[in-house]
């Protein structure tokens, strides 16, 4: 098994945590009146990016030839995932709210970890 498969597998796992987490334990705020705050849309965007990341990870597992390019594609996706909560899309205005307390730090960490893996994967697959 090539070494570059390992970061691809890690990214796949991270993407699933992002997708599953956004709808469950890492979800944004739930408003009492059922309305959606800005954090809801940030969460949806992150969910979408998680799906893209998962697809990229699967693609990279399919073949060695495309792997380098796929890892490179993952870099801007992860960068976007880091910037969306709180920077590109605003969240609720209280640090004690769920979106800021749970979703934002968790998603930033997960996408940062995926970025690191994509970087390592790109370097390893370039050498192979």
């Amino acid at each position, binding site marked *: 098994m090539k070494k570059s498969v390992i970061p691809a597998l890690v990214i796949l796992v991270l993407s699933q945590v992002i997708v599953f987490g956004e709808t469950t334990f890492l979800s944004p*705020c739930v408003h009492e009146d059922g309305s959606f705050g800005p954090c809801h849309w940030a969460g949806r965007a992150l969910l979408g990016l998680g799906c893209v990341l998962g697809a990229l990870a699967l693609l990279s597992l399919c073949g060695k030839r495309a792997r380098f390019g796929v890892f490179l594609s993952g870099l801007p996706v992860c960068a976007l995932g880091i910037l969306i909560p709180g920077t590109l899309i605003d969240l609720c205005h209280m640090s004690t709210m769920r979106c800021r307390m749970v979703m934002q730090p968790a998603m930033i*960490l997960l996408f940062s970890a995926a970025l690191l893996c994509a970087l390592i994967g790109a370097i390893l697959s370039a050498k192979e």
Partner: protein
Amino acid sequence: MKISSLSLNNLVRKPGRTLALALLTAFLALAVFGGSVIVLSLRGGLQSLEARLGADIILVPSEAQSKVSFQNMFLQGTTGAFYMDASVAEKALEVEGVEKAAPQTFLASLKADCCSIKIQVIGIDPARDFTVQPWISRSLSRELGDMDVAVGCKVEAGMGEIIRIYEQRCKVVARLEPTGTGLDTAVYCNMNTMNALLRAAEEKGISHRIESGDSVISAVYIKVRDGSDIDAVNSRLNGRLRKVTAVRTRSMITGVSDSLAGISRTVTVLIAAVWVLAFIILLLAFALIIRERTREFAVLRLVGASRGMLARMVLAESALCGLLGGLAGTGLAAALLFPFAQLIESALKMPYLMPDAGVVVPLAAGTVLLSAAAAALSSVLAAVRLSRVDPGTALREGN
């Protein structure tokens, strides 16, 4: 080629073994750094609470003397609103032993456009206040004007931003330093602004005022004169003022302080237990490694390595593993503690103020070095035993 590169070579080319040893020391570092940061944060929160409370005694309406809920305003930021006549502040000043009496008025918004939860609004008299005003002065060089607000650090509103409370437009003129207490989620204004907000709340059908009049306050912060007995003043206030209860702030802090002591003890015991366990496992791990590497060391002895050189090599390897694990463990602890600080504070339900970089960085560095030292120490026996390997016998055993 040096001893350090030999050691490094071994670590890089035996990744499984290196990873296992590094994981153990990472666990150590995680426990030490994580536990220490949590305890320091709790201590910081308590110190901050003491400083923020500022007063010796707080007067509140007797109806508000569900002490727990009043205490929770400061500890957890739960909103509250209770009122008494504003004259209580003047009457308190007349009591023997009272040096200062500063009124504050509380209001809980239904919903500010910044969030779908209630926020606590606290009105102060900037001229008389001695608890909140000094804190506000650190972020704002002038007094709070009408319809100006200073926001606690957890209110995510920028300077100059307009927030609407009961449809009243209030301008953010200061963001306050963190306190680690429930006060971080509050919004502060002067009494004119508070009265405007109270009127606006009434227009929305939320009646806050008491029947006796228009001028209301929620609490009076009392500073006792130097030399006076606080308990005696407390008793006098309780005796002279009707429908008002005097609460010693020390009693609020004692409860938190006791909880903190308990948590601190538990964390310390846990850290010690983790270290003892991990150290034993490291000792065993190195003992197993001896058997695996006897042949290798015999070869090195044969080509001229002295016992001291080999012992140093083993110590260098284990220290490097420890360093690696220390960095990983400390990094992981930091990655969990700092971004999720608010979550931890909410879970602990106690004042929680993270230490600043001046404390965290040396603590992290110390943890990493300690991990490296622990790993090196646990390999001392192995190093000594390996260095005593008889090369001829050891190599013969394989033939």
